[in-house]
């Protein structure tokens, strides 16, 4: 889209507008000749560069202009070209964004890799290669990441034939135990963990090389739950058909948080104003989801560290049941809520309202006691501390390099929370704090989650007060949204919200129809999991398991 129409976009963009005028001029002079055209997105100025300038442009942007967060890499195919988009942000101010657009020809889709500049680009570019088919020069390890090695074609490219049968031979995936072996020369041992293993939180396959009991090399192998979420969303209409899918990305009861990611992107894209009352309900529901999600993280982490089905696990599930009951009253479902609508929420709070308030308040009142219980059980436990303190260390700068977000980054001292830094919903008007910890270890991440639970409770409490006093005739739960949404062709937007695991971003390109031309999901777990290698090399294998648990990955979101 052209810059001329930009001031007419949503108010949030306008807020950042005055500062970014000068920034854009500075950026233009920084990029100089290398910027061959402009391709602005709704959320950020976009510069088109040549495929072999990627590394120099990105390193200049990081070192000179301070864009130290490579949030996402989107690849897509147009009729006449392939395009890779690098969505860059600042950890200090995520509203300050810039998009670097790298077009390549259809015949020769080769582009320079950004991996030497940002470590996080490694997996993102592998995914782009796997699904879309853009090839990246200088990439250390460009091979398929989500699909099996034997896959033919790139499923999100234009010429992919869905009807063509794909053969996956058993030989390709034969006995995962068989290749466990001792290396005769270097005296190391190769060990598979997963994809079916209780400690991998789903279907993750970790290839490890052991030197004695020490981890010498780790390589997470993902894609065992790649259920084509992006394709599913590209097939659905904006208005109703996409919303059920976000629930299934981060399926640990974090549904509302995910739905908000899509809602925010499409509402900004189609310029829809959400009623304040709906925003409060959204905020409250999302924070309930966050608590449920962190509870599961805590319970399974205790499971990883302590053993099978211990008290902590049962306690966290007891609390989750309470939250799920509340959410079921609110949304009608225990897990896959499908409660948000474009421009609001599906319906108002359940009647009788008093009962709902009472039930929720009761939960909030009991929460401090329960948190105390957890502190007694886990964080105050000496054995637990021995297992967690100073294991799985992820240094601040490394965390930034890997694009870590959410509690993982905040446990490493990165003060980054989109609810505060890139405000949406009703968070700005409420009184709460962002939790950060400097420990950089497994313990810091666990504490971070536990304290976030208390902060979420604070937010819910305030939302309840507001909802209770809201005048009856002003309870608008939905904005007036056209039956069919058809954003202008070529409009592009990248919007992120703070999911349970971190920055959950959605990139949508509209092609003028009622379905997205390209729908890209930036999953926080995907980036966080990459850092596992950094955290566990040189540590014992039980610490690797603990690190994996403290990353709190959800494979549905990693693989999408």
């Amino acid at each position, binding site marked *: 889209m052209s810059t001329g129409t930009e001031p007419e976009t949503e108010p949030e963009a306008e807020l950042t507008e005055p500062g970014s005028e000068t920034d854009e001029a500075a950026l233009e002079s920084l990029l100089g000749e290398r910027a061959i055209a402009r391709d602005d997105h709704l959320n950020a100025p976009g510069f088109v560069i040549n495929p072999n300038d990627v590394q120099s442009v990105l390193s200049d942007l990081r070192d000179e202009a301070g864009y130290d967060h490579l949030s996402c890499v989107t690849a897509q195919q147009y009729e006449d070209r392939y395009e890779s988009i690098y969505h860059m942000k600042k950890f200090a101010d995520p509203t300050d964004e810039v998009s670097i657009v790298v077009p390549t020809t259809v015949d020769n889709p080769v582009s320079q890799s950004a991996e030497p500049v940002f470590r996080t680009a490694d997996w993102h570019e592998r995914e782009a290669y796997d699904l879309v088919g853009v090839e990246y020069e200088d990439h250390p390890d460009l091979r398929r990441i*989500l*699909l*099996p090695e034997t*896959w033919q074609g790139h*499923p999100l490219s234009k010429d*992919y034939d*869905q*009807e*063509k*049968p*794909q*053969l*996956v*031979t*058993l*030989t*390709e*995936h*034969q*006995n*995962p135990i068989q290749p466990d072996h001792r290396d005769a020369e270097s005296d190391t041992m190769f060990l598979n963990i997963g*994809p*079916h*293993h*209780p400690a991998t*939180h*789903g*279907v993750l396959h970790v290839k490890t090389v052991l030197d004695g009991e020490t981890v010498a090399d780790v390589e997470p192998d993902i*894609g*065992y*739950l*790649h*259920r*084509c*979420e992006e*394709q*599913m969303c590209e*097939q659905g209409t904006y208005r109703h058909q996409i919303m*059920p*899918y976000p629930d*299934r990305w981060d*399926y*640990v*009861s974090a549904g509302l948080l995910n739905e908000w990611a899509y809602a925010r992107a499409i509402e900004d894209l189609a310029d829809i104003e959400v009623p304040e009352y709906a925003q409060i309900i959204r905020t409250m529901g999302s924070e309930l989801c966050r608590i449920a999600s962190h509870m*599961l993280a805590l319970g399974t982490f205790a499971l990883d560290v302590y053993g*099978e*089905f211990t008290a902590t*696990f*049962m306690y966290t*599930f*007891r609390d*989750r*049941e309470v939250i*799920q009951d509340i959410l079921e009253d609110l949304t009608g479902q*225990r*897990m*896959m809520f499908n409660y948000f609508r474009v421009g609001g929420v599906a319906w108002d709070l359940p009647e009788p309202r008093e009962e709902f308030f009472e039930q929720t308040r009761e939960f909030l009142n009991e929460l401090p006691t329960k948190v105390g219980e957890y502190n007694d059980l886990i964080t105050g436990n000496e054995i637990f501390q021995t297992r967690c303190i100073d294991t799985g260390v992820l240094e601040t700068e490394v965390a930034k390099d890997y694009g870590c977000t959410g509690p993982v980054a905040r446990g490493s001292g990165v003060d980054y929370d989109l609810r505060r830094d890139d405000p949406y919903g009703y968070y700005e008007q409420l009184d709460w704090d962002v939790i950060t910890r400097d420990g950089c270890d497994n313990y810091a991440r666990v504490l971070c989650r536990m304290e976030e639970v208390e902060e979420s409770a604070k937010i819910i409490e305030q939302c309840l007060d507001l909802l209770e006093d809201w005048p009856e005739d002003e309870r608008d739960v939905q904005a007036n949204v056209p039956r069919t949404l058809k954003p202008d062709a070529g409009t592009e937007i990248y919007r992120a919200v703070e999911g349970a695991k971190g920055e959950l971003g959605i990139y949508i390109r509209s092609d003028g129809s009622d379905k997205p031309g390209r729908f890209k999901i930036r999953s926080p777990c995907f980036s966080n999991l990459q850092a596992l290698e950094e955290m566990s090399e040189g540590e014992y294998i039980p610490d690797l398991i603990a690190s994996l648990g403290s990353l709190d990955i959800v*494979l*549905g979101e990693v*693989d999408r």
Partner: protein
Amino acid sequence: MSSDEPRQTIYDSTAPSTDTRDARIGEGVDDRFNSKLREAFGASPFILTKFDEFMNWVRGNSMFMLQFGIACCSIEMMHTYAIKHDLDRFGAGVPRASPRQADVMIVPGTIVSKFGPRMKRVYDQMPEPKFVVGMGSCTISGGPFQEGYNVVKGAEEIIPIDIHVPGCPPRPEALLYGVLKLQERIRNGESSAVVVKPYELEEFGDLPKDELVQKLADQIDDDDLVMRYNWADSP
């Protein structure tokens, strides 16, 4: 077993009924012997049954689940195991981490091409007799992801499934019901591994049984089992 009439405990007190026993053998030596089991056996300290039936009864009442989490449904599965729903009440709630120790596998989630072979492997590792509960729409047909390029259209493409529990995801109560139904079928000796898919039966229905088995066996190349993930052409 000792009477055709419904036992007193069904409509009355839940305490062990001792009428019959008291009449026949006098009071028990000790309260410890007045168990439900004793009551089920009646006055006689033994029962006569077929060994098969006894084994089915044992199997149905003591099932070891495989701890097998795949996708969204596994969260509800964990809730079924955990406090409140507590699958263990029905003698089926101790998840085993190793397939070698398990005899029931709940398949909780979407099967994609990369995971299909691995799931088959895990299934193959379980000792006989083994039973499978398919949890959620994805294991029935691929569910909401059916049109995905990478999604296997139902777990039954790969392994035989005894009980399907529909839902996205099914509530823990639904899974409980499914497991109870499976137990019931096992107890009645009705559940056995279905290795031939229904449409294959149709396809080979005319052949005598031995030929059918032979024909299917011939198709399997032990060295390189190939699985096909696009069933658009199948009946």
